[in-house]
């Protein structure tokens, strides 16, 4: 996380760290990525020529749990960042570990869910629902996994004492990405799960 | 004055460069025939489009002359020398800028009114029209007349003065039906039906072709529309209907069985009085054609969806293979001999016939008018 070269040595025109501007820019771009995937999902909702459909397949309780875990993880990472900024190593390590664990359990939930559906006969090839569902939630899951990897790397650095208050920005940009991944799920969850019986 | 002299001097060098292309263009423009042109509308639909287009064209020509004229004027008027004093440093002029924002806006508003009107007109589906179903294939056109229960390929006949409604779909990839004189163009999709309508006001043959890239032979996916008098059109339809097998057999795939002369060939023999050698060739061709009937039907009233074009009236068409070849006996024979050599990638394979056999099949098909 040290690609700041000389940009950081001087004040920037806006006073914001360049990496922070960059991650916001990237998030803006990612919005269009997920908007396109969600749009595709909605366009094809209810258009499958054969079953199983969303209404027959999706189970809300498990995913609600996953959603809750993911939402809490956003809170955890805020606490971790707070710890990092105050130089409170114990707090940083505790909350960052919690964030990584929460992320991991969300990914685990999704792996379980996917294998359960495949077992019940819904693969990405089965019908349009399978294709759009796995593509959308799979890409979100990939984003979560990348976030977990990123945060886990920071956790190792934190254990080694490399996340000092001056370097808390490294955690801050990861946290921004993590919040974004959560917010995307906040859109996907109602669109895919809560509206599963919706008929267009 | 000095300015104009300078302009003239400047231009003298470019006189040939300007005049030669203009002169050439003029020669080409007056001497060439354009039988597939959007600029010669031959139906109510294309006249509607032409009206909208011409509004814009004239507006564009006026704008073009004014703006390019202003550019040329500015460039010649304000040519400077390196030692000239620094010109007055102007940063803008709000009034001017508002004016040249407002004028294009006004112009566009004026253009948009007939445009929007025409958009809604093009989408009106006419009642009491002759329906022709257009089905795109890689790379040929199928035309069906559901009201008459007949179908044909690559050549659509329509009665002049009668509203025609095209209902269009594709069997494989996207195509676009483009008849510049009659109907403009509309894309063909596999999963929805698109429409176009037109009333032909001139008789004759008019060509068109596929306008959406559709694979290897997109360049060879033409068709013709023949607009005829209503009487001729009725005769045409009756002729197609008459290609139905007289026997109870209704399967289009039923090929003429060996040994007995086919209905059409006997009919043709009766009218054209083929000599015995010719007749023998036609009969052999009929036998060989049995292998062709896996993909082609000679019955225009068939309801089976065949892979290849319907050949019921093949001999009366002007072109072969979606306007790839003129329809002559020689061309037909060489097509049957090796279609891949003529239109590479086409679905019809080289059948392994000898030249003689191909000629016999061609002769047989020549009897299907």
């Amino acid at each position, binding site marked *: 996380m040290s*690609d700041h070269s*000389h940009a950081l040595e001087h004040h920037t*025109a806006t006073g914001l760290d*360049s990496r922070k*501007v*960059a991650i916001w*820019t990237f998030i803006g771009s990612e919005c*269009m990525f997920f908007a*396109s995937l969600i749009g595709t999902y909605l366009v*094809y909702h209810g258009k499958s*020529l054969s079953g199983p459909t969303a209404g027959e397949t999706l189970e809300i309780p498990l995913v609600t749990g996953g959603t809750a875990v993911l939402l809490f993880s956003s809170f955890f990472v805020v606490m971790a960042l707070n710890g990092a900024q105050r130089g409170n190593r114990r707090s940083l390590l505790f909350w960052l570990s919690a964030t990584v664990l929460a992320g991991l359990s969300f990914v685990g939930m999704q792996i379980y869910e996917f294998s359960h559906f495949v077992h019940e006969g819904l693969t*990405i090839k089965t019908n*349009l629902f399978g294709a759009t569902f796995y*593509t959308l939630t799979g890409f979100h899951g990939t984003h979560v996994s990348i976030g977990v990897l990123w945060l886990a*790397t920071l956790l190792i650095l934190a254990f080694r004492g490399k996340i000092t208050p001056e370097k808390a920005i490294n955690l801050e940009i990861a946290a921004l990405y993590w919040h974004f991944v959560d917010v995307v799920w906040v859109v996907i969850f109602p669109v895919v799960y809560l509206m599963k019986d919706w008929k267009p | 004055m000095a300015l104009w002299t300078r302009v003239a001097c400047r231009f003298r060098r470019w006189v040939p460069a300007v005049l030669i*292309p203009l002169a050439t263009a003029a020669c080409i423009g007056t001497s060439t025939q*354009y039988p*597939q*042109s*959007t600029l010669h509308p031959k139906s109510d639909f294309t006249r*509607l489009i032409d009206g909208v*287009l011409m509004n*814009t064209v004239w507006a564009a020509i006026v*704008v*073009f002359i004014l*703006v390019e004229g202003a550019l040329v004027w500015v460039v010649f008027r304000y040519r*400077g*020398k*390196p030692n000239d*004093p620094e*010109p*007055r440093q102007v*940063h*803008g002029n709000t009034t*001017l*800028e508002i004016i040249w924002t407002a004028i294009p806006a006004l112009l*566009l508003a004026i253009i*948009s009114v007939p445009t*929007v009107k*025409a958009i*809604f007109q*093009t989408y009106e589906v006419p009642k009491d029209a002759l329906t022709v179903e257009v089905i795109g294939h890689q790379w040929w056109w199928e035309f069906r007349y559901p009201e008459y229960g007949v179908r044909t390929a690559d050549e659509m006949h329509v009665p002049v003065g009668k509203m025609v409604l095209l209902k269009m779909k594709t069997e494989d990839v996207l195509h*676009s039906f*483009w008849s*510049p004189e009659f109907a403009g163009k509309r*894309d063909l*999709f596999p*999963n929805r039906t*698109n*429409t176009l309508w037109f009333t032909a006001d001139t008789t004759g043959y008019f*060509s068109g*072709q596929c*306008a*959406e*890239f559709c*694979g*290897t032979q*997109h*360049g060879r996916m033409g068709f013709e529309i023949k607009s005829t008098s209503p009487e001729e059109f009725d005769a045409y339809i009756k002729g197609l209907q008459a290609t139905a097998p007289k026997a109870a057999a209704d399967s289009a795939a039923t090929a003429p069985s060996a040994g007995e002369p086919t209905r059409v060939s006997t009919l043709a023999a009766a009218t054209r009085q083929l000599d015995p050698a010719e007749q023998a060739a036609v009969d052999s061709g009929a036998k060989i054609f049995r292998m062709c009937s896996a993909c082609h039907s000679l019955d225009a009233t068939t309801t089976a969806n065949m892979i290849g074009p319907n050949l019921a009236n093949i001999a009366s068409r002007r072109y072969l293979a979606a306007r790839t070849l003129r329809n002559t006996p020689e061309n037909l024979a060489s097509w049957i001999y090796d279609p891949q050599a003529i239109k590479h*990638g086409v679905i019809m394979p080289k059948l392994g016939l000898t030249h003689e056999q191909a000629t016999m099949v061609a002769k047989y098909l020549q009897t299907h008018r």
Partner: protein
Amino acid sequence: MATSAISHADQVPSDHAEKRGLWSWITTVDHKRIGILYGATAFIFFLMGGIEALLIRWQLARPENTFLSPELYNELFTMHGTTMIFLAVMPLSAAFFNYFIPLQLGARDVAFPRLNAFSYWVFLLGGLWLNISFLFNAAPNAGWFGYANLTTNQFSPGLNIDFWMIGLQILGVASLAAAVNFFTTVVNLRAKGMKFMRMPMFTWMSFITQVLLLLAFPVITVALILLMFDRFFGTHFYIPASGGDPILWQHLFWIFGHPEVYILILPAFGVVSEVLPVFSRKPLFGYAAMVFSGIFIAFLGFGVWAHHMFATGMGPIADTAFSLTTMLIAIPTGVKIFNWLGTMAGGSLQMKTPLLFSIGFIAMFIIGGLSGVMHASPPADLQQTDSYFIVAHFHYVLFGGSIFALTSGAYYWWPKMFGRMLDEKIGKVHFWLMLIAFNLTFFPMHFVGLHGMPRRVYTYPAGLGFETMNMLETVGALLLALSQAIFIWNIIKAWRGPRNAPADPWNGATLEWAIPSPPQEFNFAVEPEVHSRDPLWEQKRQQGPLPEPERVGGQGIHLPNPSFWPLLTATGVAGIFISMMMIQFLGWWFVVAMVLWFLFSVYNWIFEPA
């Protein structure tokens, strides 16, 4: 004015001697070198796309010509479009972004120098991957627009489409990384006093372009991912027999595709807005209007995509909406043209080659704009779309527009980039030949299109009246090639000649002209401060002609270290995509290996001291 400090700097031994050799280019993170790499690579791709165009024109010179097989013709027109858009015009613009955005901002580099190198390498690998397909006799063959369902396995079973969609996805990564970088650079690395409304117009238009890239590229990425899943993993996004809808591709493609048009033209607008004031010796007319019309064009660019789809039969309401938004775009575009005229009017025009190309740009762009308004009308478009009229239209905006403006930029900035002046006489021959040849090639296409010649046909029958005009177009294309040969001759002549360019050969207004030609690695010995829109003019007005800035040692200026990890990470990115294509031959282990290689490179990059 801080830039004047340059001339007072002490002559001391240099910390930043010019580095030489291949390794220094492979590991470079200097935005100027990366800019040159982009420019050279893109120019080579531009020539390749040009050769493809010549082969196309040779085939179409006569009716029923058999010079090219239909298969090869389809590959050539697909690669011509793909190459010119993604491998020529976009990276040629990127060359100028790289070299001149930091200089115009008064910065020492971009915000993320190593990310910048990464973008270049990914672009290079993507471009190579697209073109390697020729060696496998499997070049992409479904058009640069690759409409579904022709691109599905059923109708395109070979590797052709695989090369195309994998190549484009690799290029998309390069564009996105670069866009994040330049967006951040403009936001954060503006010199002291350079408010947004004081930025040079080239930087402004490039900044808007980055926003378009950021918002448009993810959409085609999704479209390509869906296609990839269809082709590799058996989904049915575009397969109608299973309920998929080919028109989904068209919507996603054009939601990207129309902003892409502005990605290609806005940097050109920027170049022209730099050249005209300098050679008119008069500031840009209506600066604010120029900025806001650019923003307005970009904004509307996301609301007009379906005007590419009028012939699909979307219904009268959608047609009307998209027709009106499309016509609206003519208004800010008109504002730009009038403001350029206003810039020249009252000026003292110095008829140098860069100005000639910019004037040529305006003249040609007007024609392209007017023909554009014609098919903004859906009924008229029912005749014009997919005909040669459209080919004429977009060549007037992309060649007559973008390429003329980029050539103008090349003549304008060449002395700054290489310290050598391009020859004026050869430049003028280049301009006039290119202008005449361009019009000879593309003007007849308007008529041949209106007279019924569709696009993308590998041949046409005699007797439809297309013969003479097609022959003229081919002659024009050959002359156009000759004009490019003259340009190359000019470049070689300058290359062999002495370093003869002063720091400020054109009496420039922007910061890049305050430093030596070519600039030193750190750009500015002292970071500049600006007080107006044309800082250098202001300084010259106050102090008289500036002395030639001296080359200084640059002690104590920290520059990022060279690194090869951007290149290795780029191979990881390209490798991941390519391994997807190889699943059918090699299985999944290669994908896993490439992902691990990518992660390995990323971690080395991150933990390498900058």
